[in-house]
C-alpha cells in the first residue's frame, strides 16, 4: 500500500517535471528561454518539442509570422490645407526576438512604438503633400481626348496634372521615414499602405456642394446648348428656306422675262411689217374690249367717229 502511494507520488513528480521541462514551439512561433529574467541561449526558431530546466526557466514565445498594424484614423491637413482623414495599415514582423524582448517585452509594447513612429511619419508625409499627390499614383494618365467635354470643363484641364510622386512613392516615403525613426526594438517594418483617405465631414459637404454645383452647371450648359443648337438648326433651316424660295423666284422671273422678251420680239417682228395697220387693228381691238355702259369719248376728227357717223347716217 505504501509502495503504491510512493509510486504514485513519484509518477506525479515525474509527470510534473516532464510537463514543466517540455514545451512546444508552434510553427507560427519563435521562442526565447528566460532564466531569472535573462534570456538564455539563442532564439528557438525551429518549431517542435523543446526542453528547458523546469521551475527556473520560462519560455517567451513570439510570433514569427507577418503581423499587421492598423493605424489610428487621424485628421491631417494636407499641404493645400484640406483636412483629410487618413487611415493607414502596415505589416511588420519580429525580426530580432532577443532585441525585441529586451526593448519592448511584448507585442503591445511594440505596437505603442509603432503607433508613435508610424503616426508621425504619416502625418509628416501627408501634411507635406498636396491632396492630389496622395490620391493619384505615379502612373496617372488621363487621356483628355477620352474624356467627355463636360467633365473636362468641370474639372479644369490644368488640375489634371500628373503627380510628382504619387501615392505609391508617398507610401514608400512613409515607410522610409518610419524605418529611419524606429528605435531598435527588433522589428522589421515590411510595408505601410494608406487604407483610406476621405475628407472630414465638413470638407466632404463642401466637396459635395461643389460636385452638385458642377453638375448643375453642366446640366444648365446642356440645356442652353440644346437651345443654341436648336436655334442654329432652325436658323439654318430659315436660311435654306429663303434661299430655296428666292432662287425659285429668281428663276421664275427669268423665265417670265425671257418669255416676255420673246413675245415682244414676236409681236415686234410681226407688227413691224405694217405699223399703220397695227395701230388700226389695235385701236379697234381696244374699242371692242370696252365694257358695258361705258361712255365713249371720241374726237370728232377721228376715223372711228367718221365711221360712226356714216353708220348712223346710212
Amino acid at each position, binding site marked *: 500500500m505504501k509502495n503504491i502511494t510512493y509510486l504514485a507520488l513519484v509518477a506525479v513528480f515525474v509527470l510534473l517535471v516532464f510537463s514543466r521541462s517540455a514545451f512546444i514551439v508552434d510553427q507560427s512561433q519563435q521562442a526565447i528561454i528566460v532564466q531569472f529574467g535573462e534570456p538564455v541561449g539563442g532564439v528557438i526558431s525551429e518549431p517542435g518539442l523543446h526542453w528547458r530546466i523546469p521551475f527556473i526557466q520560462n519560455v517567451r514565445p513570439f510570433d514569427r509570422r507577418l503581423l499587421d498594424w492598423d493605424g489610428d484614423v487621424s485628421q491631417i491637413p494636407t499641404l493645400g490645407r484640406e483636412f483629410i482623414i487618413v487611415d493607414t495599415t502596415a505589416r511588420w514582423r519580429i525580426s530580432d526576438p532577443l532585441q525585441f524582448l529586451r526593448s519592448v517585452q511584448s507585442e503591445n509594447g511594440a505596437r505603442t512604438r509603432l503607433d508613435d513612429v508610424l503616426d508621425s511619419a504619416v502625418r509628416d508625409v501627408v501634411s507635406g503633400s498636396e491632396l492630389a499627390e496622395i490620391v493619384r499614383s505615379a502612373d496617372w494618365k488621363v487621356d483628355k481626348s477620352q474624356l467627355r467635354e463636360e467633365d473636362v470643363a468641370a474639372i479644369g484641364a490644368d488640375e489634371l496634372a500628373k503627380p510628382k510622386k504619387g501615392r505609391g512613392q508617398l507610401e514608400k516615403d512613409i515607410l522610409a521615414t518610419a524605418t529611419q525613426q524606429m528605435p531598435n526594438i527588433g522589428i522589421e517594418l515590411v510595408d505601410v499602405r494608406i487604407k483610406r483617405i476621405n475628407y472630414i465631414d465638413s470638407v466632404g459637404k463642401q466637396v459635395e456642394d461643389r460636385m452638385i454645383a458642377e453638375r448643375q452647371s453642366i446640366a444648365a450648359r446642356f440645356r442652353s446648348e440644346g437651345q443654341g443648337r436648336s436655334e442654329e438648326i432652325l436658323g439654318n433651316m430659315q436660311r435654306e*428656306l429663303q434661299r430655296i424660295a428666292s432662287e425659285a*423666284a429668281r428663276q421664275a422671273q427669268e423665265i417670265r422675262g425671257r418669255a416676255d422678251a420673246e413675245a415682244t420680239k414676236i409681236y415686234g*417682228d410681226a407688227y413691224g411689217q405694217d405699223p399703220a395697220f397695227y395701230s388700226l387693228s389695235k385701236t379697234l381691238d381696244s374699242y371692242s374690249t370696252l365694257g358695258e355702259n361705258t361712255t365713249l369719248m371720241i374726237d370728232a376728227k377721228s376715223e372711228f367717229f367718221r365711221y360712226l357717223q356714216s353708220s348712223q347716217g346710212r
Partner: protein
Amino acid sequence: MSDARDIIEQLLRRSRGPRGPNGPRTIPAITAFQEMFGGLGVIVRGVITRFGRVIGIAENGLNFKLPFGIDAVQVVPTQRVQKEEFGFRSEKADRARTQFAAGNPDESLMLTGDLNIIQVEWVVQYRIDDPVKYLYSMRLTTKTLRDLSESVMRRIVGNRIGSDVLTIGRIEIASAARDEIQAAMERYDNGIKVITVQLQDVLPPTRVQPAFNEVNEARQQLERMVNDATKEANQAIPKADGTAKRTVAEAEGYATERVNRAHGDVAAFSAVLAEYKRAPEVTRTRLYLEALNKVLPKIGSVVVVQDGQATPLPLLNLRDGQRLPQKPEATR
C-alpha cells in the same frame, strides 16, 4: 484531458496517420470515418502539426493522427471560393434573393483622381491555395486581405477621373484591382489566390446623385431639342423645295402661254394684214364696222369732243344705243 479533447477533435475533423519521416510508429488513434462528415460537403485540407511543427497535409478521406495532443489538425477549406464584401454586407443568402444590408459608408467612400467623392462597393473572391502558408505566414490573413483590398481599390479609383470610374472604367478597375491584390498577397506569400474582383454599385455620394440625374435629363433634353429642330427642318425644307419647283413650273407655264399667245396673235395679225394688203380700203372699212358692231351694243353713250367746243357733245343716249346694232347690219 487531452484525450477527451482529441476525441472531439476527431469527431469534428478528419484525422490521419502520420506518414512523414519522423513518424515511424503509427499509433492508431480514435478515428472517424469520412461518411460521418459527408454532410459537410466542403472540400478541405487538414494541416497536421506534431508538437506545433507542420508535418503534413491531410487530404479528404480517412486519416490518422497521434492522440494526447501530440498531433493537431487545423482544417482549412481550400477549394471553396470565399468572398469579402466591401461597402455592403449580403445577408440571408438562403432566401431566393440575397438581401443587402445598408451600405457601410466608411468602406465605400473614396476619392477619385479629380478629388471628388465616390461610393464604390465591391466583392473580392478568393481561395486558399496553400493552407500552410495561409496559416503560418501571416497572422490575420483575412484582415490583411481586406485592408489591402481597400488600399488597392482606393489607389486605382484615385488614379482615375470620377466620370471614368462611374462609366467605362469598371471592368478595367476590377481587373487591375484583382491583379494588384494578388500581387500583394504573393508578396506576403500568404497562400491566398484572388479569383476575381467585382465592382458592385458605383455611385456618386447620395446627396449628389440628384444632380447627376439632372445632368442626364439635361442631356436628354439637349438631344430632344436638337431632334425637334432637325425634324422641323426636315419637314420644312422638302416642302420649300416643292414650292420652289411649283413656282418655277408656273413661270414656265406662263412663259409657254405668253409665247404661244404671241405666236397666235401674230398669226392672226399676219392673216388680217394679208387681207388688208390685198384690199386696204375695204378691209379697213370692214374692220371699223365690225368693231362698231361689237362695241355699240354695249356702249352706254358716246360723247364727241370737237376742237373749239367747250363741252363734249353727247351723240347717243342709252336707249338709242340699244337699237343701233341692227343698223350697221342693214348697211351690208
